[in-house]
């Protein structure tokens, strides 16, 4: 089998890092990207804030209690979408196989590029440099024989280091790393493992199958293999790669269907804009509803043809919400995730129905204004409530 060469690019604290490139005075300061609202949730934090214990998903009011000198940055979704697209374009000159995961995370399959670009480890360093020169962002960069090891490598040298793991060196590189660096090991599993004295990936890889499944259930056997650096997952480019996720918190918990509809539209509008900015359409939608009592409801749907307009996406999201929102409990937040983003957004069709064409033209006009000014420069009345 041909040896694989995978590069992982990870712009740590992506939103905050992008903001810092525009406002250099933010560098070295604790910052949080969040809306300035009583119940706002933090979308991202700067490296300094992260080191002080602040995390994505925290309530802004809690973060402010922890850090009094926290600088608040109003989220700019279009700016982040633009930066993501620019990152992607920087990488496309080196390989056609690029997988975008969450914002600022890319896998590049550099197998077979040696004759063009030299040793893949050198190529990884070159991509990192190109990103730095083009966008003033320094990503943490890992090169290895598979996605898993490349990803752990970027975590080890976070926030902006470089590591090239040689073929055959996977296990010895992973061995001293802390278990929480392994994808799939969240805080809960990490606590379970460390309470049993399993603190490093080397110890986890050294468990027998029986021990691993006794401690972690069925998933334990897989984690044990991952800890040894075994991973053959492919780099998924094109429609299967990137996703766009938008969370819309409610100003206050509400059981009002109109309020749910407004927040859902907010999320769809913001996410739809990001998807169109990437010249893509949505083939899969996931919706999550977070209730005030801590429970969540979720559902998803896939579409045979990509959806591109806010109207069509909102219609599908509303139908999905109708199916999954069955509880009579106040809601505190909704989140939409658009995935399976198809490359071809709009095909010219002689027989395109007139009303659909009108809708697309309206969408394009709205997007033009929003690109020039701001996402909220022009809005549908429904989201103003």
């Amino acid at each position: 089998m041909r040896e694989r060469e995978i590069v992982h690019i990870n712009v740590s604290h992506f939103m905050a890092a992008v903001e810092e490139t525009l406002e250099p005075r933010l560098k070295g300061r604790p910052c949080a990207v969040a809306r300035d609202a009583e119940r706002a949730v933090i979308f991202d934090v700067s490296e300094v804030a992260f080191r002080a214990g602040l995390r994505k998903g925290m309530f802004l009011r809690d973060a402010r209690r922890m850090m009094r000198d926290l600088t608040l940055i109003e989220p700019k979704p279009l700016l982040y979408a633009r930066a993501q697209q620019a990152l992607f374009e920087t990488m496309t000159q080196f390989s056609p196989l690029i997988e975008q995961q969450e914002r600022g995370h890319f896998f590049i399959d550099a197998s077979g590029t040696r004759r063009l670009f030299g040793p893949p480890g050198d190529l990884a360093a070159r991509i990192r440099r190109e990103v730095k020169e083009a966008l003033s962002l320094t990503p943490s960069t890992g090169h290895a024989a598979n996605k898993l090891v490349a990803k752990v490598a970027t975590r080890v040298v976070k926030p902006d280091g470089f590591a090239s793991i040689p073929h055959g060196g996977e296990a010895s590189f992973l061995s001293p790393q802390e278990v929480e660096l392994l994808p799939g090991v969240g805080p809960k599993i990490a606590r379970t493992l460390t309470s049993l004295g399993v603190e490093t990936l080397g110890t986890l890889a050294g468990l027998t199958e029986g021990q691993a499944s006794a401690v972690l259930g069925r998933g334990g056997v897989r984690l044990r293999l991952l800890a040894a650096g075994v991973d053959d997952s492919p780099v998924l480019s094109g429609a299967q790669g990137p996703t766009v996720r938008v969370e819309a918190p409610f100003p206050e918990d509400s059981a009002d269907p109109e309020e749910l509809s407004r927040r859902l539209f907010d999320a769809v509008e913001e996410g739809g804009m990001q998807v169109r900015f990437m010249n893509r359409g949505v083939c899969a939608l996931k919706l999550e509803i977070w209730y005030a009592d801590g429970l969540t409801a979720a559902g998803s749907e896939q579409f045979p043809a990509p959806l591109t307009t806010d109207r069509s996406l909102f219609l599908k999201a509303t139908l999905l919400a109708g199916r999954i929102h069955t509880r009579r409990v106040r809601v505190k937040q909704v989140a939409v995730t658009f995935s399976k983003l198809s490359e071809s957004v709009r095909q010219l069709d002689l027989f395109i129905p007139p009303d659909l064409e009108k809708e697309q033209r309206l969408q394009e006009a709205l997007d033009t204004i929003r690109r020039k000014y701001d996402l909220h420069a022009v809005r549908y009345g429904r989201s103003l409530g």
Partner: protein
Amino acid sequence: MGEILIGTSGFDYPEWKGVFYPEDLARPSFLIYYKEHFRALELNFSYYRMPTAAQLSRLVERSGGKLLFSIKGHASLTHEVTSGWKAAAAEFRTALAPLVQEKLLAAVLLQFPTSFHYNDANRRYLNDLTETFAGLPLTVEFRGADWMSRRVFDALAKRKIALCSTDMPTLKGLPPSLDIVTGDISYVRFHGRNEAHWWGSGVSERFDYLYTEQELAGWVPRLRTMADSASRLFVFFNNHVRGKAVINARMLADLLARDR
């Protein structure tokens, strides 16, 4: 962006005559010649014999204040550690006075062997040793993959100690090629990629390797990016056999100049 300063590991090699030094150059004039071509030098003799302030003072004098010196820690601090290491560390630190006074100390290099594993005793030792050099620019080079972890990097960063990046053969047991800026300065050592003679060979065979231009070109983006985050980046070539370090140091300087 920090300045990139390139040099060689050692300079007092008679075999470099004809390759670098003029054939008729007397050995005492080697350093005077070297300083006209490089701005940094890594002193390696200090590993084999404990340096003295008088020795380093003479080197400073001959360099005319034009060279920044990195100095490798004595073997009694890294490879042959005994219970008396504290006295050796104090002696070593005292010897550095002329470099410190003249602000010509680039770094103290502590290079540990492959046998120096990540364990409680060695972690404590490294902490104690680096404390004895507190206030001086320090860089640590590990030859074991078990030190290449986030918790080690965090600990180095907390103490502002530079992790030494290396170019070595890709062999089992050696650490992966990795850059992370953990100190004010950054530090890179090129040892050559002599896989066949790395283990069990003498120094003259292990470091007998000439990098190609393509191999060094692969490092240019790495060095540039490291220099962005450091006050100064020191790069030293240890492949000293028959002047190969000099050839490669000049090659790299040329590559960096062309990359501007």
